[in-house]
């Protein structure tokens, strides 16, 4: 969804591109995760916002227009990623640091920074404020959740706090729009002024080192940059500052091994003094509501059970609810294609429109209901605080494979569809862990594989029972899901020790208090993410659809008109579509492919179906329908298609399909990366073609090997 920002007031020449927004004044919104930053951002900007990425990275850049003085002169409001500190080396923190320094292309240094501070969690939230203050620029503190703090017995003397910090402190309840006018007034007041700077000092030794960097002629540093040079995770890049910082570090380290802790301790000491002077607690030690809820939700025994129940509920809803709009969309695009076909002269253009463009766009849009629903649930789980509990419960298991507890949710989402799963990996901070999670997400059996499983089982394993009660079909589907999981674990284990080698990511994770989610925020989030999928993946998918259509449509087959009477019986049984497909590049590709897929038990007709299913897995069903000439509206449950598959013969007269071939095909579908939407989204999320291409290659190789073992092993054991 591209939220249009072309309102009449904004479209004056100097501000035509809201993305670049040259000339407009920028205000940055910074705060801890879960501090209520997004709600405040939405309240200030309304729908006048836009989501993009920072150049070169996949950190979301959320920007909107805030009518501070008048609607005619809105300011740019930039929502920085949620962060706890500006010092560490995570991508989010680097980006935020660079934005505050004005080092990001297209983003001027903010004239005012609004620091969002959660009143129920003052000390840790103020830590980031101490760092922002160090930049020496104007700051306004927006105190969120002050209503909740009051309920919890925390009384904050706002005026005194404002005095101690040296910047305006404004209590806001964004959801009820209270305090927003006061916030505007405070921002107007500090506009153009100089910030108070940091209120804390280090030991004499440390201050001497800082002063010597500050007074050195060549460096021209401010206090914040000097502190960063000495205490930052990384040394400065440029000489001679690097040498100066290194020798300062060595002198300080010689005096005390804990020298690096000094700014951290000083900041917290300052915070403790301020909080001690301005906040009074009148609460006992009674367990909070969140702790009571956690008594059940993270209980050793009930916690995992409840997690299982939550996931079952989500999947049940996605499978049952999403199928209705999915069928509607599918049907709608079918109708649209028919409409075009009946109203346009038959020919290449019509075919391109119906079989290429409309089928391609429909193939993308059909995923939309599932994606929207999944994002809806993911947003709810995130905003209520449950996501952190799921990561807490699953961390031991995920850690064993070398992944982070936060990888659990994305992987689970991938059982419905890998696309939202892959997009949900953004919560994983370490890039290598994130890529490892993305690389294994498509092994989770997604809903697009179900039609394939259903057809294979319907044709060869229907009505078979084990021990008289359990159907073979159910066991096979379960086995396919398990196969995907086992391979995913093995691959993650392998990758984390080879190409994505990195120390096990530490888990230092906030467990936010449970909160009732804001439904406007959730709906907004859901549509924004779905819009990103449509915009970025959609264009790639459309292009690939057209290419695949061309492969199946060229070279053209023209039914010889003179033969129509001569061999009526032949013409009546073989549909021109079937001949067209056989003679097309895709058909020829199937034949060329035959030697490669023969060891898996597949013939060239299945090869065509495999080629077309690289667009999307469920395409196998419709392609087989065309190949076996049963009409392309047959679905995976129709008896005509099942009959055709059972009756299909190879050139030598033997049946093309056996139960073993069907099993081999299912195994192939579990492991192969046959989904251009996934490829497109991996391209987008990793910002390179390297990873998606690698993914297609290694997954296809694995699928071939596993199918080979299945088919040849089965034959050795005397099956098929």
């Amino acid at each position, binding site marked *: 969804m591209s939220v249009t920002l072309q309102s009449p007031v904004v479209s004056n020449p100097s501000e035509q591109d809201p993305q670049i927004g040259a000339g407009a004044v920028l205000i940055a919104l910074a705060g801890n995760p879960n501090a209520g930053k997004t709600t405040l951002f939405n309240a200030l900007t309304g729908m006048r916002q836009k989501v993009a990425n920072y150049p070169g990275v996949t950190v979301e850049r959320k920007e909107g227009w805030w009518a501070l003085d008048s609607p005619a002169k809105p300011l740019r409001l930039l929502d920085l990623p949620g962060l*706890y*500190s500006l*010092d*560490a*080396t995570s991508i989010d923190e680097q980006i935020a640091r660079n934005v505050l320094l004005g080092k990001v292309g297209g983003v001027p240094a903010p004239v005012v920074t609004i620091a969002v501070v959660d009143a*129920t*969690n*003052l*000390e*840790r939230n103020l*830590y980031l404020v101490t760092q922002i203050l160090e930049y020496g620029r104007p700051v306004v503190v927006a105190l969120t959740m002050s209503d909740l703090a009051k309920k919890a017995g925390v009384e904050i003397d706002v005026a005194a706090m404002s005095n101690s910090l040296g910047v305006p402190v404004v209590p806001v309840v964004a959801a009820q729009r209270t305090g927003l006018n006061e916030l505007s007034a405070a921002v107007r007041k500090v506009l153009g002024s100089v910030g108070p700077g940091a209120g804390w000092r280090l030991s004499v030794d440390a201050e001497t080192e800082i002063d010597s960097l500050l007074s050195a002629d060549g460096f021209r540093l401010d206090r914040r940059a000097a502190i960063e040079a000495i205490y930052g*995770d990384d040394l400065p890049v440029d000489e001679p500052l690097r040498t100066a910082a290194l020798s300062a570090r060595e002198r300080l380290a010689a005096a005390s091994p*804990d020298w*690096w*802790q000094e700014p*951290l*301790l000083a900041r*917290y000491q300052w915070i403790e003094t301020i909080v001690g002077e301005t906040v009074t607690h009148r609460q006992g030690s009674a367990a909070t509501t*969140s*702790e009571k809820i*956690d008594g059940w939700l*993270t209980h*050793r*025994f009930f*916690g*995992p059970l409840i997690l299982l129940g939550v996931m079952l509920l989500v999947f049940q809803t996605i499978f049952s609810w999403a199928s209705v709009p999915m069928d509607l969309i599918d049907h709608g695009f079918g109708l649209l294609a028919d409409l075009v076909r009946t109203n346009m002269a038959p020919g290449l253009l019509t075919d391109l429109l119906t079989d290429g463009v409309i089928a391609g766009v429909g193939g993308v849009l059909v995923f939309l209901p599932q994606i929207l629903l999944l994002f809806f649930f993911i947003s709810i789980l995130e905003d209520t605080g449950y996501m*952190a509990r799921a*990561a*807490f*419960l699953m*961390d*031991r*298991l995920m*850690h064993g494979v070398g992944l982070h*507890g936060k990888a659990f949710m994305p992987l689970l989402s991938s059982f419905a569809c890998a696309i939202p799963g892959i997009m949900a990996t953004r919560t994983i901070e370490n890039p290598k862990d994130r890529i490892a999670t993305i690389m294994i997400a498509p092994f989770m059996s997604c809903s697009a594989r179900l039609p394939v499983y259903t057809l294979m089982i319907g044709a060869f394993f229907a009505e078979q029972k084990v021990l008289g009660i359990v159907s073979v079909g159910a066991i096979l589907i379960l086995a396919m899901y398990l196969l995907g999981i086992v391979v995913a674990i093995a691959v993650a284990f392998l990758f984390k020790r080879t190409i994505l080698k990195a120390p096990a990511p*530490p*888990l*230092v*994770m*906030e*467990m*936010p*208090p449970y909160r009732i989610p804001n439904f406007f925020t959730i709906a907004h989030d859901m549509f924004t993410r779905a819009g990103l999928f449509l915009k970025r993946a959609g264009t790639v998918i459309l292009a690939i659809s057209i290419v695949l259509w061309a492969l199946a449509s060229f070279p053209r087959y023209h039914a010889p008109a003179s033969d129509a009477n001569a061999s009526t019986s032949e013409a009546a049984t073989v549909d021109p579509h079937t001949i067209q497909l056989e003679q097309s590049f895709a058909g020829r590709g199937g034949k060329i492919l035959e030697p490669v897929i023969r060891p898996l038990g597949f013939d060239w007709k299945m090869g065509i179906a495999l080629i077309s299913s690289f667009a999307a897995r469920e395409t196998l069903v419709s392609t087989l329908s065309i190949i076996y000439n049963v009409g392309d509206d047959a679905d995976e449950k129709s008896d005509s298609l099942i009959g055709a598959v059972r009756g299909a013969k190879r050139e030598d007269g033997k049946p093309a399909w056996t139960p073993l071939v069907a099993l081999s095909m299912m195994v192939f579908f579990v492991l192969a990366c046959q989904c251009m939407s996934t490829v497109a989204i991996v391209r987008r999320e990793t910002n390179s073609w390297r990873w998606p291409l690698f993914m297609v290659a290694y997954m296809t190789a694995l699928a071939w090997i596993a199918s080979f073992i299945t088919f040849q092993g089965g034959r050795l054991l005397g099956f098929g």
Partner: protein
Amino acid sequence: MSSTISLNGSTTSSLSQLPIGAHARVLSIGGTGSTARRLMEMGVIPGAPVRVIKSAPLGGPLEICVRGYHLALRQTEARTIMVSNEQ
């Protein structure tokens, strides 16, 4: 790491050795890497009171309360934090 009993009756141990529900005060953070820094940024610094809330099943992470909020960390990280157990 073994517990030692000091003169004033409080015991010194690592955070991972504390029983569920125990109140303690942070004495020191071992290690120097980014994990130690992150722990301190999150408010786990010498002098800060902490309370052990629970641990996840099968030796999973530990949940503690520090500065009025809840923080999850693995046993590996908890072992680097020395605390004095307040009786």
